[in-house]
């Protein structure tokens, strides 16, 4: 007997397969059991660590590149002789195996965390080793992504970045989570990988392991034990969707020819082929953090120049927008010392870091200008975390001084959206980062799962700020794009186009769906949908109103 669960569809597409639950980290019981044979307990603890090491080595062998190196190093940590002798010492003193392993790893973790920077990042590896060893010793299921040996639908309360680092899109057919909103890590990851996903599905964890489910990430439904007819219907819908996506080709435009440039968000040169394969008209957001994080020294100008040139050359003259370094206390740099901040999201991050370390930005701008010259292409450059027209002017001056003719800023602080007209007077373009703009507009931390409803990109207040920015762009005749999650929601894309947004930049797998949605409607329909959404009282009402207009 089939049953339908409802949630929020955040990554389009459908898939049917057996459900598998994400393993949750084990917890040590409050009371320690008595130990009869301390020697045997020590052997058991060390054997569990070695088994974890073996598991991680196997995973490393199956991975490639940097992921393989990280897993291999983690495997060595699990089998570390100094760790083993500390575990033996604790066991000899009468601690049960699971407690001995947990405590020894915790002391190393504390040492790495205290050292900060790169070492603090490795502390997460030790936490993972501890979870795995404790699960083995207590006979609990392994934490993390299951590996049943066949494709499956991943079911979880929620997914954290650590859970998904090893997620293989070839075996995960779809994702269903109990919590999380449209801008949650799960939603972003699923869209990036092109995996259908339903989040905020309250009954998700009632689905038993192995039960077949049919997931529809477009309408947000999960059919448990679907009938043959329902499976057939899901397959038919998937085929229709594939045909619809395949039919939409070329640059983004409405059915009556109004252009909306469709761009890709990428994190480095390795993502260029996917952007081109998805038909991106350019890069709307090249994040440059990958060059800076997880290393001891600032990358030299020559190294940056080569990487930027690789992206510019790879895009073959298409538009490329490079965002300067977006780091801060929440994404610390080993070589740019910064004090811990009580509210890193409200602290010295993005362009604000320039006040402490001005050479970082100059090196980056110079490297980009040289890369543009090397490749004979135009590179657009923009700064993150700009709040005032004066900051925008200062950044544009710096960029132009380095020979970068097209300078813009991100609009992600409400103050910048409110003064969009004055900001546009200083720059050549703006790009709206809807994720941070939501966080700052609603005073709601992006990491706080309980606040997800406030961060819904359909919130009318957020749409108002986008509308103000787009209107200022129209008045000045300069481009106003969106490069946040909002751009990849096919229905919201129509609203954004209707508000006057000129480009939408998103993870490459989301491009086809947005292109197809635009091709289905006229500009007038987009404008009507935008008007309806802006005046709605709630995100759900905004969605419903826009859908009614778009489907009319």
């Amino acid at each position, binding site marked *: 007997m089939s049953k339908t669960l409802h949630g929020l569809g955040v990554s389009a597409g459908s898939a049917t397969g057996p459900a598998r639950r994400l393993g949750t980290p084990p917890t040590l019981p409050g009371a320690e059991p008595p130990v009869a044979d301390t020697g045997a307990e020590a052997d058991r603890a060390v054997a569990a660590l070695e088994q974890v090491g073996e598991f991680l080595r196997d995973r490393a062998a199956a991975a490639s590149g940097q992921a393989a190196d990280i897993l291999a*190093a983690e495997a*060595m940590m699990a089998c*570390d*002789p100094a760790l083993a002798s500390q575990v033996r010492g604790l066991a000899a003193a009468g601690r049960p195996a699971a407690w001995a392993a947990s405590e020894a790893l915790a002391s190393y973790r504390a040492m*790495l965390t205290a050292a900060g920077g*790169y*070492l603090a990042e*490795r502390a997460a590896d030790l936490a993972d080793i501890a979870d795995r060893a404790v699960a083995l010793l207590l006979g609990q299921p392994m934490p993390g992504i299951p590996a049943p040996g066949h494709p499956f639908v991943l079911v979880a309360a929620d997914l954290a970045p650590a859970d998904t680092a090893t997620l293989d899109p070839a075996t995960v057919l779809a994702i269903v989570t109990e919590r999380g909103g449209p801008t949650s890590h799960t939603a972003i990851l699923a869209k990036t990988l092109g995996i259908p996903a339903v989040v905020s599905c309250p009954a998700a964890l009632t689905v038993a392991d192995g039960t077949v489910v049919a997931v529809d990430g477009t309408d947000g439904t999960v059919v448990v034990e679907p009938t043959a007819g329902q499976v057939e219907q899901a397959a038919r819908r998937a085929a229709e969707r594939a045909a619809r996506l395949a039919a939409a080709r070329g640059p983004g435009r409405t059915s009556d020819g109004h252009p909306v440039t469709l761009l890709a968000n990428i994190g480095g040169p390795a993502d260029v082929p996917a952007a081109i394969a998805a038909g991106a008209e350019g890069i709307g957001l090249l994040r440059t953090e990958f060059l800076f994080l997880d290393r001891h*020294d600032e990358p030299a100008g020559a190294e940056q120049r080569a990487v930027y040139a690789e992206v510019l050359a790879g895009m073959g003259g298409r538009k490329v927008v490079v965002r300067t370094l977006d780091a801060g206390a929440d994404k610390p740099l080993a070589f740019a010392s910064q004090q811990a901040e009580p509210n890193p999201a409200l602290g010295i991050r993005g362009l604000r870091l320039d006040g402490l370390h001005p050479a970082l930005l100059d090196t980056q701008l110079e490297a980009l200008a040289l890369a543009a010259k090397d490749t004979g292409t135009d590179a657009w450059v923009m700064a993150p975390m700009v709040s005032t027209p004066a900051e925008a002017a200062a950044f544009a001056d710096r960029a132009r001084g380095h020979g970068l003719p097209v300078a813009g800023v991100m609009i992600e602080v409400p103050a910048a959206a409110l003064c969009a007209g004055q900001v546009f007077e200083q720059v050549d373009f703006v790009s709206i980062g809807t994720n941070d703009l939501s966080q700052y507009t609603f005073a709601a931390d992006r990491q706080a799962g309980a606040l997800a409803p406030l961060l819904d990109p359909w919130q009318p207040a957020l749409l108002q700020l986008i509308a103000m920015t787009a209107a200022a762009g129209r008045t000045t005749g300069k481009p106003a794009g969106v490069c946040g999650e909002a751009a990849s929601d096919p229905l919201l894309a129509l609203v954004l186009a209707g508000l006057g947004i000129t480009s939408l930049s998103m993870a490459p797998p989301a491009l086809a769906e947005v292109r197809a949605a635009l091709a289905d409607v006229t500009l007038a329909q987009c404008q009507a949908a935008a008007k309806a959404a802006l005046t709605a009282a709630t995100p759900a009402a905004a969605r419903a109103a826009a859908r009614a207009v778009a489907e009319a």
Partner: protein
Amino acid sequence: MAQRQVTVGSSVGLHARPASLFAQAAAKAPVPVFIAKPGGDPVDARSILSVIGLDARGGDTVVLSAEGAGAEAVLDDLAAVVAANHDA
């Protein structure tokens, strides 16, 4: 006791891949090897956690030591691992 002073060649320091390669090489050595920062306490070179914990950066000097048959040859090999630039 045989000793070598070596400058760390990788710009990331004895972290990540360089630390793994070093600890792996030390684990294969026929004699126990220790590594220290000059004037610091020597730690077991086979222990990647101890090696990472030294926080030796690119350009820092470290001291390798070993005792017993073949110690000189072992230190020559390990010194080469420390001095190599694994970033390249």
